């Protein structure tokens, strides 16, 4: 499997990355190298092997339903380029 330049540009757009034509070409090469490597892995016969989700045998940790966090709105918005009354302000996102 390999990707063409349009696919690279589309994926970049979906990821909100600005990519020049020149960089897109370079990325196409890099992505195809990665896909080639994955294709190589695909050659391994994994019939009957359980998919591995973690290198250590463990269960997902769960927490109890208790409120332990919050009430720090000023801190939450402190990195935002713009805020008012502890709201984030962003360029208008409605048509």
């Amino acid at each position: 499997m390999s990707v063409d330049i349009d696919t690279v540009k589309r994926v970049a757009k979906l990821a909100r990355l600005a990519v020049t034509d020149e960089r897109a070409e370079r990325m196409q090469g890099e992505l195809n190298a990665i896909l080639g490597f994955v294709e190589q892995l695909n050659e391994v016969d994994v019939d009957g092997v359980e998919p591995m989700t973690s290198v250590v045998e463990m269960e997902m940790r769960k927490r109890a339903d208790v409120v332990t966090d919050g009430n720090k709105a000023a801190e939450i918005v402190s990195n935002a380029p713009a805020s008012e009354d502890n709201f984030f302000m962003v360029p208008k996102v409605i048509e």
Partner: protein
Amino acid sequence: MTLIDTRTPDPKRFIAGTTDDWEIIIGLEVHAQVTSKSKLFSGASTEFGAEPNANVSLVDAAMPGMLPVINEECVAQAVRTGLGLNAQINLRSVFDRKNYFYPDLPQGYQISQFKDPIVGEGIVTVSVGPDKQGNFEDIEIGVERLHLEQDAGKSMHDQHPTMSFVDLNRTGVALMEIVSKPDLRSADEAKAYITKLRTILRYLGTCDGNMDEGSMRADVNVSVRKPGGDFGTRCEIKNVNSIRFIGQAIESEARRQIAILEDGGTIDQETRLFDPAKGETRSMRSKEDAHDYRYFPDPDLLPLEFSQAYVDQLKSDLPELPDAKRSRFIGEGLSAYDASILVSEKAIADFFEQVAEGRDSKTAANWVINNLLGKLNETSQEIEDTPVSPDQVGGIIDLIKEGTISGKIAKDLFDIIWEEGGDPAEIVESRGMKQVTDTGAIEAAVDEVIAANPDKAEQAKEKPNLAGWFVGQVMKASGGKANPQAVQELVKQKLGIE
């Protein structure tokens, strides 16, 4: 997903276009907010109406390096809901990232479940009706799946000329997305389905069903076809937030599609919005890439696994659900109609059961439905607001049964207790509302009415129906306190009617 048509086309559900009859095909994706104290993957509060960004942790704000840890109660709630929907519970499910960019979702992806949801196929039995003959029809609506996911935040667009304001309090609150099969065939069926779903969730205590606060919202998929034909192209109406609007959105969207098709056009698969003010749907946005969410398993979360014993434990702790309660009530002598009304809200069913304890259940049902629910409806109040307690209603019923008050006086007594409270027996005593059962006094009243109306008394010998008029007059004269049966007997006896 392969679409299988489980329903037989029925002309009574068709709608007429200009040239043909059409059948509407509907599927609902209901987003129900899980009842929990804290969020799905963070310890911030889920409370509604907090100050902007007060219920936000660094996890919800997607600060770099923060890791999600799952709330075990949200998992239990999803399993309970699955059990309540008679659904397959998956002992192993997986969280995926659904990638898209929007300011109310700072992670840049929503943690959801795609390939392996926590709950699989289930069934909801929905009662639709009454039709013109007063009959209800039970239909089975398939549930495709239920999965857990994060809610997004809230954007406000009217606070500033060029900026939107974003509040992340809702970001990360647990949602259950409950996806139906395309089994619904009319707006009424869709409304009955979501009403039933809401009732089940409220019984289970897994979602408060508060649509005003956005705890339940639905995406509605609508397509039309010639009866029995292939499924048509569907449109998805996003985020409809009331049961009434769901009905309106379906009706108007079906009409729009039929008009296009009968004009020889084709339907574009697209996302639409329902505008309640205009009562119609409109295209939401061009979403060329919108459905390219590039799902992949979230590397921050291990698969969600639990044992069958865990599921069994949750199952044994489930409350009695509406269908089971309805069957039990019918078994105790109630009509299907009365039983359906009483189980529509758990609080109503509980109230009824307290009244019915040690009393005739049919009488108790009549009092709860006709008097209590009637009055609540009249005053636009919910069962939770009732000023009259089950004990008070029970007290009134007991007074009727003992013959202390008549049915008519009982209604006055109910109104007095509604306004002023108090013990039914004491009020009857102190206000002289007791029924007159003293035959002598009633006899005198009957004699009086007959003496005052000799013509009518004469006619009554020919037309026994007139006895009712005399009974009415005597009751009126006694201020409703005379025992109606005693009056009836005496009137007949005095008038010489058998």
